[in-house]
């Protein structure tokens, strides 16, 4: 009897065991199988270096350089204190940084996590040696983005940053990894797909200490492709220096092809801020900066063009037959429209002028009258023919269209009718009209190349493959009209009284037009747009001087320096 109770107790124990085994091995098998695989297999990512970026002379602008990270596998650490002390000493960082870094590693205790990035070759070798005595310590070789001339090229190249959560969720199916760098602006963003290589990986079997026992799978990383640009690094650096203490933009473009030789925007910034973890504090400063250094003013911001728009008015009037080159008009310093008075910038007036005189003098009155002859609708039509109000399709992301207003546009936007006075202002590039510096370069190219709207572009070839970024179409303006304006802009710089005389050079004939755009703040933007040489223009230069005052002075002078440098470099 007592033996039977004894047996029953044993049997209940047996049942308990069988149930436990059944649950663990049969019901929950899949869960544990996965856990066992995760234990056993580790995928070591093999990072593919990002492609480099080069200028038109194959000078390096950006590339991925070898860099070392000090990483640890938390579960393998034996003496945490000694290891932290050693790392702090070799890497010359304070103990707290190391300790904080190690705490981060606790989240993924079985895989290597970076504690200090970009540690330098010397420290890497020292740590590699110390790793023998300190299990858990690893030196990982990775790549780090380097920009040859940092802030000088950043407006074109942009920058890269670590992929963030929403980006990752959106892009994970395209081979991005959680720690990946992704292009955030400029060419780095536009051509991210090509620059970014295909990551490889090594699937290895590891033991409990993370030692590799066997390689199970291997996929070679595919480096990203190099990008060859139209930029001229020397001219680019030169333009960057010219803008150094100002706000604004410079665009230098080949009017025949649309190749961008230089594009600078100021204030500028150092793109390496975004890849160097130690400088992450500076990122916030950049984002908070009220001068918006991250905005590439050449393409991402639109401003009133001021008098440079007079070139469009002149061409429009000639093309539509509303005026002829010899159309003369007397400037008395102002015109009246109803009760309103619209003044020329020269109080006493310019007297009698032909069209090229008016361009040379930038006479407001002459263009008020042309504007009234054309009407707001026609002005809008011609503004669009010169590329305003739409994207130039330059291969730099974030481009804005600006605004080409028209009576219809005003009704749609403000529910208000168009006033004649607005047409008058329109004619001298004031009012609702907003343009980007790159659009201005495109506009000037129509005059320089005698009739074609070219698409500006930066990238010539990707890897060995030339990509066809060249694109141009007739603007629909007759050569005769263009020639008249060309003569006007030539005189504007080269005539004794020309408003653009500050851009004049002895070594090459520069032609161009100044502009001073009034803003609601009361401070004016300065503009200059010109081309050279006169006979067969090979370079268009736009200088935009944000709140820089009268275009005739600083902007024209700056453009002159750009042309001189371009001549020196053999570009013109």
């Amino acid at each position, binding site marked *: 009897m007592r033996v039977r109770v004894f047996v029953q107790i044993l049997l209940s124990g047996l049942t308990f065991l069988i149930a436990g085994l059944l649950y663990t091995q*049969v019901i929950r098998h899949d869960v544990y199988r996965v856990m066992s695989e995760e234990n*056993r297999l580790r995928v070591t990512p093999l990072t593919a270096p990002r492609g480099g970026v080069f200028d038109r002379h194959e000078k390096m602008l950006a590339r991925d350089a070898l860099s070392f990270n000090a990483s640890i596998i938390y579960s393998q650490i034996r003496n945490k204190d000694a290891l932290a002390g050693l790392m702090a000493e070799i890497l010359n960082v304070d103990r707290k940084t190391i300790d904080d870094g190690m705490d981060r590693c606790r989240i993924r205790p079985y895989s290597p996590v970076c504690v200090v990035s970009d540690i330098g070759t010397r420290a890497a070798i020292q740590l590699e040696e110390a790793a023998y005595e300190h299990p858990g310590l690893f030196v990982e070789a990775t790549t780090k983005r380097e920009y040859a001339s940092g802030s000088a090229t950043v407006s074109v190249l942009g920058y890269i940053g670590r992929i963030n959560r929403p980006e990752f969720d959106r892009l994970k199916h395209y081979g991005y990894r959680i720690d990946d760098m992704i292009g955030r602006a400029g060419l780095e963003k536009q051509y991210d797909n090509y620059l970014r290589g295909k990551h490889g990986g090594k699937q290895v079997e590891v033991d409990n200490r993370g030692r590799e026992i066997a390689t199970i799978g291997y996929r070679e990383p595919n480096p990203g492709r190099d990008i060859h640009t139209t930029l001229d690094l020397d001219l680019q650096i030169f333009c960057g220096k010219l803008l150094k203490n100002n706000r604004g933009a410079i665009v230098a473009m080949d009017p025949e092809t649309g190749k961008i030789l230089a594009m600078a925007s100021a204030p500028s910034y150092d793109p390496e801020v975004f890849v160097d973890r130690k400088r992450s504090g500076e990122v916030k400063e950049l984002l908070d900066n009220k001068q918006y250094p991250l905005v590439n003013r050449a393409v991402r911001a639109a401003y009133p063009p001021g008098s440079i728009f007079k070139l469009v008015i002149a061409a429009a009037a000639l093309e539509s037959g509303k005026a002829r080159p010899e159309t003369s008009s007397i400037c008395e310093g102002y015109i009246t429209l109803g009760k309103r008075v619209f003044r020329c910038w020269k109080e006493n007036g310019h007297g009698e002028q032909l069209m090229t005189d008016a361009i040379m003098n930038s006479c407001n009155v002459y263009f008020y009258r042309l504007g009234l002859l054309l009407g707001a609708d026609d002005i809008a039509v011609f503004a669009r023919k010169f590329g305003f109000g739409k994207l130039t399709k330059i291969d730099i992301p974030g481009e804005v269209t600006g605004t080409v207003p028209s009576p219809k546009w005003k009704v749609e936007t403000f529910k208000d009718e168009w006033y004649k006075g607005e047409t008058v202002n329109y004619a001298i590039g004031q009012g609702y009209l907003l343009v980007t510096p790159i659009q201005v370069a495109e506009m000037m190219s129509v005059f320089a190349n005698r009739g074609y709207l070219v698409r500006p572009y930066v990238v010539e070839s990707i890897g060995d493959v030339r990509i066809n970024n060249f694109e141009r179409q007739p603007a629909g303006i007759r050569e005769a009209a263009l020639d008249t304006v060309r003569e006007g802009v030539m005189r504007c710089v080269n005539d004794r009284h020309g408003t653009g005389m500050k851009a004049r050079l002895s070594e090459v004939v520069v032609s161009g037009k100044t502009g001073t755009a009034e803003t609601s703040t009361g401070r004016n933007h300065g503009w200059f747009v010109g081309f050279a040489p006169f006979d067969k223009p090979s370079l268009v230069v736009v200088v935009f001087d944000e709140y820089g005052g009268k275009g005739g002075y600083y902007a024209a002078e700056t453009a002159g320096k750009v042309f001189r440098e371009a001549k020196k470099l053999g570009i013109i």
Partner: protein
Amino acid sequence: MKPGHGRMDRVLLLAVFMIVILGLAFVYSATYVRGAQTGSLNPLVARQCLWVGAGFAILLCVAGMDYIRMLDFAYIAYGINLLLLVFLLLFGGERYGAKRWIDLGLFSLQPSEFVKITVIFALAAFLGERKEKAGTLRNYVYALLLVSPAFLLIFLQPDLGTALVLVPILFSVLYVSGENIKYIVTTMVFGVLSMPVFWNILKDYQKSRLLVFMNPNIDPLGAGYTIIQSKIAIGSGGVWGKGWLGGTQSHLRFLPERHTDFIFSVIGEEWGFVGAMMLLGLYCLIIARGVRIISGVDDTYGKAIATGLVTLIAVQVLTNIAMTVGLMPVVGLPLPFISYGGSNIMATMIGIGFLLSVSRRRKR
């Protein structure tokens, strides 16, 4: 049939033989190093072979003797064993935070393994001598007092698992030998109520093991690591297992103590649910034969010895497997016949020898 001259239980002998061979196979697998030179036997496996061989020799010797005569030495053996435990506490060197081993140069002796056997003998001798007084309070209290020094000495080592395994042995022997059930239940209730006191005596690592049993994720790299890795090993084995020598958890060393206390994880991983059931089947066979011997013998000595030994094996199997699957806290109990360890193998084999000896004194 004359006492001591019947046929010993051959089925039991065969089952023990099979399970010991199985054990060797898995000690081999647990200590197997992939890519190591073939042909050279791992020294651990070689030693275990030696122990198993010696164990079998002793088993057969013991089985051939009359256990009633041997009982004359029960108190002496128990006494020597207790002295060894005292010696350990006073002079023993610590290993893994406990004083469990006496280093004898060539091998080290683990007296607590042998005390499992000698305590059963002492108990059997005591209960057999005083079988007329069975059921009295005095008899019961004396029995408790007889066992308590072994319990205390092992508990102080500290070796919670081995100390606790003495409790079911004591109670089942007392119960089957006809002691008063009221006393047994009262002692148990008292024991449960005094748990909080016990908790405070426990060492930190023992407490953390118990806490981790409740939730292994408290400290996945520390105390919980073994449980988690063991459950992964057993669970990933599935129905059919990964094949002998094919376990990744054990061969890649994710599993600590895989050839000793956690050898069942290797079996579960490599032979799966089916293999685990086969092993359990063999244990059930041994225990069933043991139960058959208990009910077949009519002297109190034999009954007590057989009950104690069957309980010892059953409780260790149950506790060990349950802890590897995470159904029980980790207490350091070996898997009988299988786990690596000379003292364990020898003690168990001696125990089975006595069981076989008892089997020869059957009524029918």
